[in-house]
């Protein structure tokens, strides 16, 4: 009997899939957390499903070949076979239970963080990560998006005494100690995000308007790249961060260098009304989606810290002095001269001449030199947070509350 092409194809596809599975390098990478139970469940499912796939695929190929059309032949007339059907139902049900049971057990673990887990807040916003620790009292101060201001990036509720000792980590890199369970609380400033490190296995969405959580225990000291796994707008793919799993000692040292909320507030220097106005204008025009003022260069735009003065290299290799004329041109005609390493994505802002001057006033104060300005008129002024590691910004150990 001629072998039907489709029978060969079904056979090749089935066997080929199995071969691909065993030869491909693409499998889970080495696990970096306590979630072996997830991997085990995956393997169980893999085995059961793999067997089912191979059996069904091969049966199909074989039967399609074996029972090819013959003129005049009658197929067997068998509408139903109760025992076969109920047998298959039972076997399938057993298989499903075997897959489901470890999954539910693992899920039970997953949603119940151990008692000794410490809490870490991951604060997400378009398109970067920040972190917060509860500080010495072990309790997070209340924080809400409605309090988010330029000088209050986490939206801390100012009269909540629990908040003063909270440790704010204003960069996208966090260090966590190895072998200690951590309960990650997720908050979002704007849209849905998802804090995800593939090797850790665990993830959860950050949902604005509520606080979600998951927990894990890192077991390998390593620098992990953090991805955003929930579509969060046009720069979703570039929303990266770093999670550095370190030894307890290194963690302690690092922690001591971080600033508390109370210290953060103290370290802020009042702005002149013009500069504060410029800051607000820049905020409402969305400048800080791409530019920072703390020295970090995002993928999308250079930082504004120290932007006033000095020179810059453009993408055509020439250099420019960053004087007023250059900066004004960069704002009003952003695609004319592109700093090396960036792409011309900036929109032309719709601002008046006055507003432009205010922004320039604001940019002028953004230097990493310690700024000692006289306090401006009471009530009118805003303030600017200085970059971390600033001598003026003392990492305060002791909470300021009594």
């Amino acid at each position: 009997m001629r072998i039907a092409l489709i029978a060969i194809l079904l056979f090749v596809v089935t066997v080929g899939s199995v071969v691909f599975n065993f030869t491909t390098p693409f499998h889970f990478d080495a696990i970096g957390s306590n979630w072996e139970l997830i991997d085990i469940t995956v393997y169980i499912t893999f085995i059961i499903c793999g067997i089912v796939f191979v059996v069904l695929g091969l049966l199909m190929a074989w039967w399609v070949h074996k029972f090819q059309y013959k003129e005049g032949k009658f197929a067997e007339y068998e509408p139903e076979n109760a025992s076969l059907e109920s047998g298959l139902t039972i076997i399938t049900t057993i298989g499903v239970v075997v897959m489901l049971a470890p999954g539910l057990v693992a899920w039970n673990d997953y949603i119940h963080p151990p008692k000794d887990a410490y809490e870490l807040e991951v604060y997400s916003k378009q398109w970067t990560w920040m972190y917060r620790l509860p500080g010495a009292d072990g309790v997070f101060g209340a924080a809400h998006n409605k309090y988010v201001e330029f000088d209050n990036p986490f939206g801390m509720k100012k009269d909540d005494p629990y908040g003063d000792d909270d440790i704010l980590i204003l960069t996208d890199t966090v260090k966590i100690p190895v072998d200690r369970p951590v309960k990650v609380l997720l908050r979002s400033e704007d849209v849905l995000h998802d804090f995800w490190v593939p090797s850790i296995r665990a993830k959860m969405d950050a949902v604005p308007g509520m606080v979600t959580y998951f927990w894990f225990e890192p077991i390998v000291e390593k620098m992990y790249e953090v991805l955003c796994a929930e579509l969060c707008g046009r720069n979703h793919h570039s929303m990266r961060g770093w999670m550095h799993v370190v030894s307890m000692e290194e963690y302690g040292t690092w922690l001591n260098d971080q600033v508390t909320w109370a210290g953060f507030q103290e370290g802020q220097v009042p702005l002149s009304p013009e500069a504060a106005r410029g800051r607000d204008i820049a905020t409402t025009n969305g400048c800080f989606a791409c530019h920072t003022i703390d020295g970090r260069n995002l993928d999308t735009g250079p930082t504004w810290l120290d932007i006033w003065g000095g020179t810059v290299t453009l993408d055509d290799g020439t250099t420019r002095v960053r004087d007023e004329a250059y900066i004004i041109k960069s704002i009003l005609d952003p695609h004319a001269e592109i700093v090396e390493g960036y792409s011309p994505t900036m929109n032309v802002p719709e601002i008046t001449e006055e507003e432009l001057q205010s922004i320039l006033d604001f940019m002028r104060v953004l230097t990493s030199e310690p700024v000692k300005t006289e306090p401006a008129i009471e009530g009118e002024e805003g303030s600017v947070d200085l970059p971390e590691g600033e001598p003026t910004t003392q990492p305060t150990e002791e909470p300021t509350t009594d």
Partner: protein
Amino acid sequence: MATEGQQHPIKIYFLIWLLLFVFSFFSYLVDYLDLQGNLRWFLIVVFMLLKAGFIVAIFMHMKWERFALIFGILLPPLALVVLMFLMAIESNYAWSSRVQYMGEDPAPKPKPPPHMDHGEHGEDKDH
């Protein structure tokens, strides 16, 4: 021909009509007396279902339809019951998350003042 359709005495319409007012009156009473908590929602739902049931059964003639139709129409909304039930649970969860972490409690209870050596959490910094 006239005997073919559904023939019911007009009396029953008036009866149901009056009953609906009685139930409406009771459910307004719930609001008026400002009953709160589970009792309030229980009573409102009971009166709501009673009224809906009478309208469907009598005014919409479902009582006189064959059960094939009755089951066909009344079973699918069970999925909605599941939806409502789960959404109620989750709303509570979201609400408590707002109260716990975001300081949104409309009637905040005084929290104990922060403690310096609050169990093992405080140890993080000491290492």
